């Protein structure tokens, strides 16, 4: 099988064996780390959604049961996923 191609200043040329091997290794690392990367991104996005509703937790605001359930579902979401499902389209809890 031919090595990967690379495009240098408009010219497409085949990578050397060394370059090809380095690229293949890099792609493997990327693939292996996909679940970790996705969980990290998921938690980051989840935290932003929690921040959006943080003000309901203020002492002078009464948080509805629906909002409590929504925020709990957000916190629990990572635990409902595994290394395969985290790579798929995420079904987020519906904000009340």
């Amino acid at each position, binding site marked *: 099988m031919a090595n*990967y191609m*690379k*495009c240098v200043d408009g010219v497409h040329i085949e990578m050397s064996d060394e370059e090809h091997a380095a*690229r293949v290794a890099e792609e493997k690392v990327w693939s292996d780390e*996909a679940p970790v990367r996705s969980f990290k991104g*998921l938690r980051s*996005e989840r935290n*932003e959604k929690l921040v959006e509703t943080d003000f309901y937790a203020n002492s002078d605001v009464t948080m509805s049961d629906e909002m409590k359930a929504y925020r709990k579902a957000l916190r629990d979401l990572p635990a409902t996923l595994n290394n395969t499902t985290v790579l798929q*389209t*995420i079904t987020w809890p519906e904000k009340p």
Partner: protein
Amino acid sequence: MSQYLTGLNLLDPGVKRYNGGTSTFTMDNNGTTNGTLLWVSGVAQIPGTDYNVSGATITTTTAAPAGTNTVVSLQLFETGIVNTVASNAVTTAKINDDAVTLAKMASGTDGNIISYDASGNPVAIATGTSGHFLKSQGAGAQPVFAADNKGAMTFINTTDISSAATYAFTATAAASYDGYGLFLQNIIPVTDDVRMWFRTSTDSGSSYDDGASDYDWNTHNYGSYQNDVADNQIELVGDAGSSPYQVGSDTNENGVSGWIWVWGPHLTAYTMITYHLAMRPAHAGYPLILNDGVGSRLSAADVDAFQILFSSGSIESGTITVYGLANA
């Protein structure tokens, strides 16, 4: 003009009589056959047939009849003198207008042009760098070939990428540019759910730095931000939360479009880039993403090449056009 005829002095008198009985007659001056007329017994002789002249001697084909003064010669001019033009003796007035053709000019160097030096003498202006223009340096100075676009954006090249694992730009030129703008049009990955990366080289593209602490970056998108203070690359797009926000390769997802600026890569400093890139996420139902970001090397170096690649798989297609910010 190497030779010309001169010295046709009129002789006065040029007539001489001779006694007959011979076929040779000596004139008082050198002459030529056609410049000398000869009569024998009153009959005109034909030059070149009946007689010839060499030097001052007339030789007839047949001996003239004996008698006193039976032969008469008339010599109008002395022999013409063939001479050469003295060096540097042809004056401007001797040359017709429009008479000097290009072929008559001395050969020069391909691409040079003619100007004049301080003494008013013609000089050759050396051929400039490809793409440069002839630039006046004002009165009293010869023009030069130079970039005419100080501080302007100058097109460098454009590349249609097709199934290449990486894109590289190595045509940096510190003598010409202070920075570079890379304009990306629909850079589509072969593999779904990937990120776009940017790396730099300090050896003209022989290798690209990808150590775990070679770069830091910070990007904003759809109201959030991601960053990494020690990474193997500058993340351009795709790191915007969960997997669906990565770059997709499906139909109508159209890849990544936008621009990247590379600032002063030739300076031995932490080369910095800024970028403004748009993409449609890999999964349906997610909003379009516009990434505004900044990235930097974490070591000072003279950067002379850049690389763009996806985190996995090749670039399926797309166009990248590069402009240089001409040195101010």
